[in-house]
């Protein structure tokens, strides 16, 4: 059932995301083409057009990221909390299936967005000016960083970082879902309350994060834990990654349970 839900979710979101990606790639191509032309012909009109396209390209890059997040949050709201919820919650599917299909779709599109942004940047990097800038950045000696860890350690860290990123992205979407589900469990002002709860969650997490950071710094400064004694950067990276992984996993669990509980026990379709 999850597969079917995911299939329909991807179909519903693809009709927006695919044109957005096309727009991004087209704007990258136009930007790069204009860079070639501006380099070949010394025309003021081309320089002005290049400046304009560079702004459009930057906005499209940022807009694609915003569109990805906004659409995934809107889909959860529209498909489960408005009239469409009457269909979705009467399908022979579990609440877990409904939440997971939304979350998996959001993660898949987030990966696609990263790939589309990378492609757009790669296309723009073919252009003369961007290429020169990148060559300048990468002309330095990067071997110090590459030699910091062994190949095995690099692979392990990259895999852990990908997992941490996936968990962190999941917790971000689940925080939106939990806020929407909580806001919609009330009789009135559902959307407004959802926004209020989202900001309350953000504020709460920042407060807890600040408190734990201060506590951690004091602890590290006054005690002599192994992390501080170690001169091995791999140990430090490993500890930081573990803290990030555990924190993200805890947030995923908390927001998932809150969302699930509210949709199962306090569903309140208008």
């Amino acid at each position: 059932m999850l597969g079917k839900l995911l299939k329909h979710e991807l179909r519903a979101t693809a009709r927006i995301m695919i044109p957005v990606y096309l727009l991004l790639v087209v704007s990258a191509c136009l930007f790069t083409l204009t860079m070639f032309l501006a380099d070949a012909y010394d025309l003021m009109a081309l320089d002005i057009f290049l400046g304009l396209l560079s702004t459009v390209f930057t906005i499209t890059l940022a807009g694609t990221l915003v569109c990805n997040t906004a659409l995934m949050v809107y889909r959860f709201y529209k498909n489960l909390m408005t009239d469409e919820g009457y269909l979705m919650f009467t399908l022979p599917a579990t609440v877990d299936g409904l939440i997971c299909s939304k979350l998996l779709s959001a993660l898949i599109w987030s990966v696609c967005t990263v790939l589309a942004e990378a492609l757009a940047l790669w296309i723009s990097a073919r252009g003369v000016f961007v290429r020169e800038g990148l060559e300048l950045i990468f002309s330095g000696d990067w071997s110090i960083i590459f030699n910091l860890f062994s190949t095995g350690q690099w692979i392990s860290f990259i895999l852990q970082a990908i997992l941490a990123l996936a968990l962190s992205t999941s917790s971000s979407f689940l925080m939106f879902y939990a806020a929407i589900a909580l806001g919609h469990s009330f009789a009135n002002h559902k959307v407004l309350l959802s926004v209020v709860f989202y900001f309350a969650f953000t504020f709460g997490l920042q407060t807890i994060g600040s408190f734990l950071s201060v506590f951690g710094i004091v602890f590290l400064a006054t005690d002599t834990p192994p992390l501080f004694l170690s001169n091995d950067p791999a140990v430090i990276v490993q500890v930081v990654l573990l803290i990030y992984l555990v924190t993200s996993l805890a947030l995923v669990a908390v927001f998932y349970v809150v969302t699930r509980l509210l949709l199962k026990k306090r569903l309140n379709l208008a």
Partner: protein
Amino acid sequence: MPLLECKQLCKRYGAVQALNNVDLSVEPGRIVGLLGPNGSGKSTLLKIANGLLTPTSGTLTIDGLTPGTETKKLVSYLPERTYLSRWMNVVQLLDFFCDFYADFDRETAERMLTALEISPKLRIRQMSKGTQEKVQLILVMSRKARLYLLDEPIGGVDPATRDYIIRTILTHYNPAASVILSTHLIADVEEVLDDVIFINKGTVALQSSVEAIRSERQCSVDELFREVFRYVG
């Protein structure tokens, strides 16, 4: 075993008691009118039966099961709202129902769509409200479900559409199944009903067969409804 059974079912929204100690049962093969004025608790009862609301106390079972994934396979629900995604066209909706409901009969749906001259390529957002309601009803009635729960299927549509809807319910429901039809437009549905449940202010005021009402009380369901609700109100 009753197809749908409520025992001491209560639902409270804050200070409002939407359902109060409702006891009722619906046997298979019956067309039941769930009749009552606006705000009497009809939609709340149907929402609980569909797992969209959780009862405050008491139980509601469908074929002996508490509303959940298994009962949703047995129930075909028509809510009073249009729940179809506005961007979808009719073909996409048929695909959707085929995917999720093993008992969905695509051929029946396509036949009904053709009869009503509804283009399969038409998107929901391009349809009038009446056509949207017809498509929704076609999708719901094209399932070979055990229990059809229809919430105000004839409210807010013109008389011709109303006739079509009633005819559709009669000709397309699975005869071994039951239909619970919630409405306050009694005269329009009276002819097709086997049983009636009168509900007012969250309480069952009467549960009887239409035949018994006609033979014992010598009146129509519509007349009895007016009498009962004049008395209760």
